[in-house]
């Protein structure tokens, strides 16, 4: 239907200094642990974790320091051994201040006793979910949705296909690329274990074809395993978007407002799968991740970083920033968040820290010239030009009718806009307002219902009295 393009819309973002070309040859190196880690309690989607340690406690590496705050949540483990300094605050890349556990590193790296799974190939779904949940694994592509929840199908839903996301379509980022090159066997092993546990017969690994070495490595690793197929994908952002990837690989369309499981699919990032393998085989919780440090830094590279390492420490380890750097971004340049606090920690979802130059500063917005480029770039086939006009006129109803709630905020429209309009930002705002309105409407309805209920009760009581 969309030819070789594989999904509708999309763009080819360009890269600057320190992009994929400069970084994809840099092998993963272990980043020395910082003197102090700042581990936020809500670095995943869902309820914040509840701390289970107190100021002054001595903790070991991998020890649970906060437990999951609900079903959609994840526990958090210490990424260094040392002393809990305090339960304080951290600023996240999006600017939000959240509670965090600060640990002073004793540089001994003493691990807690690890409990590798005794029968990794015969896990039941429930056991696998438990292992994954207890290891604190969340989606490592950036969204940080608890993986165990993702692997818990609603009643009546079956996981038919596991899709491994190795697209890494964001410019600059090379962490997944290096991981697939260096840990191909472990990733495929993790995938096989998950397939066995959930009885999935079919798995597809999607990799953009600008990473031929990674495709070759993954193919080699997957060869002995039945049911795993490595599929090369054309380079096109946002190939790694969940719905786009599912469509590109299976031609299934996730219905609006639905989940991948509605079409029998679960999508996992390759980094997540590596973490799952580590959790099942070695019992290791998620305490470090591979992060790309790219853009205008002196020595770009891919590093294995402890969760909670402040960005300042990362940049120092890479020889500092270049003078031209004007902006720091957590994640890729298309969807990542710009931040300005160097104490911002690396979280489970931090796929990269990118330094960008003056050409990334927002140019002045011009009036829309209705060229229609945004419509052709939109991977959700929305009508950004019209939605933007409505949102700027505060006509949220019309924007909602045009499907603004289905916007995945990939930034493709903003990227191509010749008038340099902040379309994605406009949709973010629109979505926020519409969500707030829906919530308010639901609350009002609930209140009215309660009111009616109360009145009815009162009336009945009165009638009874009279009667």
């Amino acid at each position: 239907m969309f030819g070789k393009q594989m999904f509708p819309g999309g763009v080819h973002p360009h890269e600057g200094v320190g992009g994929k070309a400069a970084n994809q040859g840099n092998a993963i190196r272990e980043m020395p642990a910082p003197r102090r880690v700042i581990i936020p309690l809500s670095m995943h989607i869902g309820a914040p974790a509840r701390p289970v340690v107190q100021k002054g406690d001595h903790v070991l590496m991998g020890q649970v320091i906060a437990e999951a705050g609900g079903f959609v949540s994840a526990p958090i483990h210490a990424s260094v051994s040392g002393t809990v300094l305090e339960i304080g605050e951290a600023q996240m890349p999006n600017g939000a201040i959240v509670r965090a556990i600060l640990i002073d590193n004793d540089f001994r790296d003493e691990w807690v006793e690890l409990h590798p799974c005794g029968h990794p190939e015969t896990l039941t779904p429930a056991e696998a979910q438990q292992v994954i949940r207890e290891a604190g694994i969340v989606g490592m592509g950036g969204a940080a949705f608890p993986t165990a929840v993702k692997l818990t199908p609603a009643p009546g839903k079956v996981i038919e296909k596991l899709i491994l996301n190795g697209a890494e379509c964001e410019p600059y980022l090379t962490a997944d690329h290096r991981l697939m090159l260096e840990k191909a066997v472990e990733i495929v092993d993790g995938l096989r274990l998950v397939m066995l546990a959930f009885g999935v017969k079919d798995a597809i690994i999607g990799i953009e074809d600008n990473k031929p070495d990674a495709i070759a490595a993954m193919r080699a690793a997957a060869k002995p395993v039945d049911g795993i197929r490595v599929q090369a994908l054309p380079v096109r952002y946002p190939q790694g978007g969940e719905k786009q990837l599912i469509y590109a690989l299976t031609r299934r369309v996730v219905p609006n407002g639905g989940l991948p499981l509605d079409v029998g699919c679960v999508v996992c990032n390759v980094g997540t799968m590596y973490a799952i393998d580590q959790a099942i085989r070695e019992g290791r919780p998620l305490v470090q991740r591979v992060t790309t440090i790219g853009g205008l830094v002196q020595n770009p590279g891919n590093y294995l970083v402890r969760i909670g390492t402040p960005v300042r420490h990362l940049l120092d380890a890479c020889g500092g920033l270049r003078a031209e750097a004007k902006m720091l971004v957590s994640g890729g340049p298309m969807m990542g968040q710009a931040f300005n606090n160097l104490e911002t920690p690396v979280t489970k979802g931090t796929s990269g820290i990118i330094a960008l130059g003056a050409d990334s500063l927002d140019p002045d917005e011009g009036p829309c010239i209705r060229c229609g480029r945004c419509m052709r770039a939109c991977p959700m086939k929305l009508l950004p030009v019209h939605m933007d006009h409505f949102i700027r006129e505060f006509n949220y109803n019309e924007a909602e009718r045009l499907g603004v709630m289905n916007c995945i905020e990939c930034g493709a429209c903003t990227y191509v806009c010749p008038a340099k309009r902040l379309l994605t930002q406009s949709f973010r705002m629109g979505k926020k307002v519409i969500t707030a309105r829906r919530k308010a409407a639901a609350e009002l309805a609930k209140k009215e219902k309660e009111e009616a209920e109360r009145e009815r009760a009162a009336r009945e009581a009165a009638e009874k009295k009279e009667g």
Partner: protein
Amino acid sequence: MSTFLAILVGQILVNNYVMCQFFGICPFLGVSKKFDTALGMGLAVTFVITVASFITWLVQSFVLTPFHLEYLQTIAFILVIAVLVQLVEMALKKLSYSLYQALGVYLPLITTNCVVLAVAINNITDGYNLLESTFSGFCSALGFTLALLLLAGIRERMEVSNMPKWMQGFPGALIMAGLMAVAFMGFGGLI
């Protein structure tokens, strides 16, 4: 057959009552803010004009002309139209309430829509027979509806553009209509 084609093209494009002859400007400007209302108005007008063309022709041919009462044409026609609109309103209410709800609000406005009267008078002036009159009425109404919908589309679009304050409302609509009329002038001489 060619007469009918000429009437069709003529009334919709070449001699469009709104765009080429300045009839029905009040509803044209008044009811063109939203596409949906414009559509409702257009449908209601189409219905009324078609029926009115039919009846006024009968009135002219069987009442006014035989009794030499041509000078009462204006009074007679406007009365016919007013009564017709009332009847249509009542009939719609009885027969199809949903249609009444959709079109009902526009019906009283149609009495003072000069397209209706103008079409009725012009049918007589042009010497059309009954069938031609009715068809001409229908086509004129389609032309009116077309112009109304086109303007509504443009106005809806302008609603979300950065049109200066002093252009909003009637002045803007008038200039839009003027530019539309430029486009319609291209059809001159088509028949």
